[in-house]
């Protein structure tokens, strides 16, 4: 499994958000974090790769342009987690996860095997929520069920859009540790759009900073960020330092005036 982007443009409603974007080959078992300010195009790029949004250029999965792959093969390989599950549904969490498998492979009555569903609830520590209706769950819990819907299908490429945005610290770590395990154990590639830059620095293998309609910086977490990149990406004065355990961390000092940056 490998992923690369060549001269990719992505947008929505006919309006380009990103253009001329390249991403050197991402090897199997890697986590790529997409970071950047609001509106930088993180979600737009994920939707483009997932085949759900407008995208031009070459998105190459395992040496094949995904536009040339049959849709059913793409669905089997890619798992996409949108930003939110709706809150008004009377579905039970267990059947929401079951529907993810059965809807994707309706011809196979055993596709949503009970063991696979049970395993994903256990892996994510969601056993206590399994028999509760989605409308009774908090935003963070629904986000976890959404992630279970993606993971149960065992995709080779995971595209997660803000998977930790509604979660407390414990669940943020649970999600990213699970993704890390999936990448290490099964060789899956995971591309995550994420706002928490320190979580991104800690868990990703490659950091891609988006801004100004393209890539501002890209590379290993230790080298992809510096004060200048943070200033251009977010309009802030910030420092990148090493914590006592050796991870790079960003310490934001103050926001620059809006003349330098617009959200």
């Amino acid at each position, binding site marked *: 499994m490998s992923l690369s982007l060549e001269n990719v443009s992505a947008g929505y409603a006919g309006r380009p958000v990103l253009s001329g974007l390249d991403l050197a080959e991402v090897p199997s078992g890697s986590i790529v974090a997409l970071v950047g300010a609001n509106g930088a195009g993180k979600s737009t790029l994920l*939707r483009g790769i*997932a085949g*759900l949004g407008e995208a031009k250029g070459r998105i190459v999965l395992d040496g094949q342009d995904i536009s040339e792959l049959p*849709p*059913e093969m*793409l*669905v089997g390989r*890619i*798992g*996409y*987690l*949108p930003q*939110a*599950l*709706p809150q*008004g*549904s*009377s*579905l*039970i969490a*267990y*059947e*929401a996860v079951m*529907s*993810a498998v*059965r*809807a*994707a492979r*309706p011809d196979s009555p055993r596709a949503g095997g*009970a063991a696979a*569903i*049970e395993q994903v*609830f256990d892996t994510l520590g969601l*056993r206590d929520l*399994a*028999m509760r*209706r989605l409308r*009774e769950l908090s935003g963070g819990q629904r986000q976890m069920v*959404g992630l279970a*819907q*993606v993971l149960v*299908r065992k995709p080779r490429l995971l595209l997660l859009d803000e998977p930790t945005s509604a979660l407390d610290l414990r669940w943020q770590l649970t999600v990213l540790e699970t993704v890390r395990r999936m990448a290490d154990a099964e060789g899956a590639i995971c591309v995550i759009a994420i706002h928490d830059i320190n979580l991104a620095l800690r868990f990703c293998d490659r950091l891609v900073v988006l801004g100004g309609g393209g890539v501002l910086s890209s590379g290993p977490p230790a080298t992809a960020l510096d004060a200048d990149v943070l200033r251009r990406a977010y309009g802030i004065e910030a420092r990148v330092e090493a914590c006592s355990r050796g991870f790079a961390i960003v310490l934001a000092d103050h926001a620059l005036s809006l003349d330098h940056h617009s959200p």
Partner: protein
Amino acid sequence: MTRHLTALQERSASLADLYGGFIRNRLIAIGLLAVGLACSLVLDVATGPSGLPVADILTGLLDRDALPRGQAVILWNIRLPYAVMAVLVGAALGLAGAEMQTVLNNPLASPFTLGVSAAATLGAALAMALEPDVPGLDETWLIPLSAFACAMAATLLIQTLAGRFGAGTDTVVLFGIAMLFAMNALLWLVQYVASTDALQQMVFWTMGSLARATWEKVAVVALVLAACVPLSMRSVWAMTALRGGDDHARSFGIPVERLRLRVLLRVSLLSAAAVAFVGTIGFIGLVGPHIARLTLGEDHRFYLPGSALAGALLLSLASIASKNLVPGLILPVGIVTSLVGIPLFMALILTQGRRP
């Protein structure tokens, strides 16, 4: 202590076993709805100006000749088609309402959201006002066929517009509202120029009545229902997944726009067939799915049949009520469903509001 033990038991049981409990409860609920519907059907047949005891009904159903000729005619030619039509139309509207609420992601959607009912009413009104002489076509079929043709024309127009400009939920609802207003304006125009007799007929038609039921018309609704139910059941998983939102469903490989257009076509067919023969009957398509959602949840394997059964039961009960509310008078069933439906609907909303 007991709660602690229960929690421990839940932890040790597999999720599949725990979910099996939900499935059993739902099957029981569907069974109860079916039994309630069977009882209501018999009671509907037994209710009317002349008495028809339940024992005679069962005897007559098994052997028509076992009843006196008069009773056999009442049973087979009047009461039974009337009662069966209530069940079929209720089931069609309940099923159509459930599918509509799912694909439009809106619990207030009903089979009539797209203006199909208004189009059928316009078709019926045109036939009443113009009274065209169509060779080979019985007069009693002219009005329903015209209603059906107009409803399907409106459906095809919406399908074309949605196919061309996108089948997003907002777009489809806006097309439906536009259709509703356009059809109502045309209906008022027809009513304005119609004769007094035709106008009276139109007003009566819009109240909805099962009294127009005959076995031939029952057969048409049954055929439409029989054609649509297997198609609905084939897409239960896709529709269940759609409850997680369009983007989730798309990421599972579900062609959401195509699914939505197909469901809308099916819903229009079901509601057009129902409305064409009995006139406008409100609230069944709105309340039936709500009852099913409250009792069965939104796994569409249970929700869709449950909505059809709940819709059938509601209209069958309304049919019984329409014969009993005013002694000696059979009220148009559309009036009863609205009168009973409004308080029931309010009660459901208030009950739902109190749930955690």
